[in-house]
């Protein structure tokens, strides 16, 4: 006797995260997975960036900070700010 299940379409639901912890951006105090005050949409429109010092901020926030400062330093640790290159697919996650 047959008993066969054929999945035609599996419509799943997922949420995304910047994988930056459950924390908030140190500049705007908004969650990384949300958007900074002047951003309208989260995600692609409100990217999160890391410095080589491993501190993370919303791109908009750190850009504004850097523009307002003479020296390009991380607002947290005062180390020279440099964007850390994203290692594409580097650390294959635990998914």
């Amino acid at each position, binding site marked *: *006797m*047959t*008993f*066969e*299940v*054929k*999945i*035609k*379409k*599996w*419509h*799943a*639901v*997922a*949420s*995304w*995260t*910047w*994988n*930056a912890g459950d924390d908030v951006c140190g500049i705007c105090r908004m*969650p990384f*997975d*949300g958007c900074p005050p002047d951003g*309208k*949409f*989260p*995600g*692609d429109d409100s990217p*999160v960036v*890391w410095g080589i010092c491993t501190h993370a901020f919303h791109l908009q926030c750190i850009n504004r900070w850097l523009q307002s400062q003479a020296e390009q330093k991380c607002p947290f640790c005062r180390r020279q700010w440099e964007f850390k290159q*994203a*290692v*594409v*697919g*580097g650390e*294959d*996650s635990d*998914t």
Partner: protein
Amino acid sequence: MAAAAAAWLSFADASGAALAAAGGSAATARLPGDLAGAVDGITAHGLAPLVPAQLLSAAVAALRARVARLQAALGPVAAALEAAAAGEGGEDEEDGEQGAAALPEELEDALAEALREACEGVEAATQLLSLLCERVLCSQPTLSAADRAALLAAGPRFRRDAAAALVDAQPGGHSWAALLYRYYWLKLRQLSEAAAAAEGEDEAMAEDGEPGSSSLPHPGWGARLRDVAAYLRALGLEAVSEEAFAAVVCRHLREHLEERTHRAFDERILGPALRYSASTPLAFLRLVLPQGTDGAAALAAWRARLSYYVYEAVGGLRIADMFDIVVDWPDSLPAVEDIRDCLQNTSLHRRFVAAFRKSLTDRLLRPGAATADIIAQYVSTIKALAACDPSGAILGAVSGPIRAYLRGRRDTIRCIVTSLTADEEDAAAQSLLAELDNTEAAAEDYDSDFEGGEADALALKEAERWEPDPVDADPSRASSAAAAGDVISRLVGIYGSKELFINEYRSMLADRLLSKGDYECDRELRTLELLKVRFGEGNLHNAEVMLKDLADSKRINANVKSVPNTATPLRRRRHLVDINALQATIVSHLFWPQLPAEEFNLPSEVSAMLSTYAAKYRSLKAPRKLQWRPWLGTVSLDLAIGDQMLEFNVSPFHASVLMHFQSRPEWPAAELAERMGVAPDALRRKIVFWINQGVLSESRVAGQQLVYRRNEQLQTGPAVAQEQEGMELEGGAADKHAEMAAYEPFIMGMLTNFDALPLDRVHNMLKMFASDPPYDKSLEQLGAYMGRLVADEKLSLEGGTYRKR
């Protein structure tokens, strides 16, 4: 002395006889010679001061006799009228086929004649009296001022006494009021019947409301009525007469209106009623009121009185039917317009409010009525009242009970939101959606807590539009004129805050979006755009992000699918599987209602697909990654069982359960639950679905554990009570509020100390100070709870700050 007495006696005799006889012929302008002599005789003896009293008593005595004659003369008339009135009572039942009972002409003539006689008698006596007094005055210029005044006043005084005596008279054993009432009633009926008969012949007459003489029953008809009315006036019976014909005219109008209103709401009755009041009743009044300028003024006053009476009567009739008028809205627009005009011209507002409120409470606000019906009736009420009372004061007064009642129903918000977001087929929803579309009354009417800068401009605009409430508006209610016709803001305002509404909208939107098998959300987008216009973009930002997530998901899904399995960065290439059957909605979780975070173990083939998908996503979007929400989503599958092929659209959990039975025909419940990572109870609740479908069966041998077994053939057995389908995204509102209630003392204490606080400060202080239980709620949850406290009237919300009541 004796000479004086003789003179006095002769004067008394002569004047008494003259007074008694007065009126028989035309009144004289001069005193008869013998009387003049008698007067001169007594004045010569200095008896002048005694004259007025003597004359008056003689005149009144003569009058008494005259009144007795009048009463006797009117006896037959009164009897005939009474018979006519009595006959009419029976006649009504026969539908008036005999026409109005007629007063025989000779009796009407007798009435006029008797009145004329009385009238002339009083007139002549008065005149005689005045002449006598004048004569005394002339021949005795040395009288004291008081005596002179008494002499001058004798004539008018007699007239008054005569009127008083006549009013007290009881012609034919009836009061004047009853007699005249019957008389006028008869006449008016005759007139109206004649007018009705003439109407057929002469439509134009009814149009201009000025019935010509042609509509009078017959030529002498009007003249008699006019004469009777004129004599009554002359006799000083004006008040009685007017009272009688006023009552008659009002009764006539009332009966006419009652006949004409057959509870039909689709045509106006006010216009015809006003036209009618200006035709027959006014024609009647034209006859009974005096002619000349006095009469014209009185007629004008009567015209106004009649139209007021019509407004009031029509208003009363319509008001009694208001509930049904609202039910029939918008077909009942004519009736509503009637009410509008009546309210403008009368002061029925209070009565209207009381009657309508009562019918609402009696007929609508009952446990048996469906919430959707109450909302529909409320919407119709809002629209109908906006049409009949633009100031909104009445709406404010009657909507109180409806709003209070709806506030007490738990599914109200859900009903409103459902009807706003429901599918196209639903007609009721369409009307609400159309209402949402009605942007003219949109956002600006909103109490702008959050719009900041615009608020001043809006307030100014509001101020320019302000009009005073009607005087009889209930001052305890704030004027809500601006929002009178704005259905949506009124519905939303039921709970006192739009946040609650928006939250409910968001949670329903989430339900809808997550249960979709595709990414199409045009309708949701349209609704959202309309809501944005109304509530402001800021308040609906979350919903906007949610819909954007869907659009983004569609794009990302296509991108993920196009990433080849051989793409270099995907190190675990050997684990990658075909993901054509998989598609995903990827949400920005902070902007959605709380999504269930707990997981269950998906079948390995599915989790392989998911991790492949996630890996490809990561290769596109690093450093972002996906977190699956296995409970959410939908699965469409084909099930081949026995020789049958079945198609299902089910939740991922149901699909997973079924897949486990592919490899094994039976599973002990505990084992399957462990395999799936859920509690056996939870599993049972879900698996019942498949048992009811006849796909699986359960069996429990005594002392042994529960076993689920797949059926080799589809079985149709008795259904087992099924769990509530659909995963609730958030716990019921009541549970959440129960959780929040633990913080109520904190909130109350805070507001006692600080007087007024905005939401975010309450939130922050709770975070800082509330430790038992620790505060772990979101700002939205707190906002919803505070909204609830506002609705419960424990707090008030003004300009974005909460205070204690």
